[in-house]
């Protein structure tokens, strides 16, 4: 009897580590089903102002153009 209890306890505790945490909410073959990613302008810095974000990216892009920075 005690052997049976020990075996049952061993099975319960031994297999308790075999659980797998669900990483995917809904899995659909052929399409991304992971976590959603927010827009880069939806944060405290831009407060959802897409035009402001695009202006910042455009300005940064032009800063790479040395012709515009130092003249011809």
């Amino acid at each position, binding site marked *: 009897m005690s052997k049976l209890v020990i075996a049952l306890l061993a099975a319960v505790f031994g297999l308790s580590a075999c659980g797998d945490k669900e990483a995917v909410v809904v899995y659909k073959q052929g*399409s991304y089903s*992971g976590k959603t990613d927010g827009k880069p302008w*939806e*944060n405290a810095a831009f407060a959802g102002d897409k035009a402001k974000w695009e202006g910042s990216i455009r300005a*940064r892009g032009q800063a790479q153009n040395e012709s515009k920075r130092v003249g011809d």
Partner: protein
Amino acid sequence: MARMKFLCDSERCIECNGCVTACKNENEVPWGVNRRRVVTLGDGLPGEKSVSVACMHCSDAPCMAVCPVDCFYHTDEGVVLHDKDMCIGCGYCFYACPFGAPQYPQTGAFGQRGKMDKCTFCAGGPEADHSEEEFKKYGRNRLAEGKLPLCAEMCSTKALLGGDGDVVADIFRDRALKRGKGGEMWGWGSAYGKPEQKPDAKKPEVKS
């Protein structure tokens, strides 16, 4: 909407590896992983060419096509990102990628692979912007700060350009038209050339 792209001007790249260092530092990339690297052809020979390579954020990305768990996604800005919580570290994307962009941290003995890591165009990943989880898994989210990837922004010779594909293409086209060919391409004439002589300039008298 911007379509984010990288462009490396091999006529300008001096193989300083500043882009590699910037990337590693900015994103605190783990040991053994290089999201960006500089490849040199004909190293040490006259006419050697270097090019800085990372994920090119393909429009029709092969990594995305072969991933068995579909952990990749395109952002609206055209950046290819992936969810590390879904990645199983199989390495299919590494075989599919023509640029060798996907990297794997060694997480244990016997070459055991961790979850895939690659260039994010400094756009972080699918976690809350500027959160600790995002930084730990994917690195900085510079796009959410209105900035471009640091590798391109700090390139000393501006060989590596990053940003909206149209803007980057315009900068490069303008540059290629202005620099011409031959020695002028890399500034020999500007640095060491003689000032232009007018045809009617009086020659100095030479005493015999």
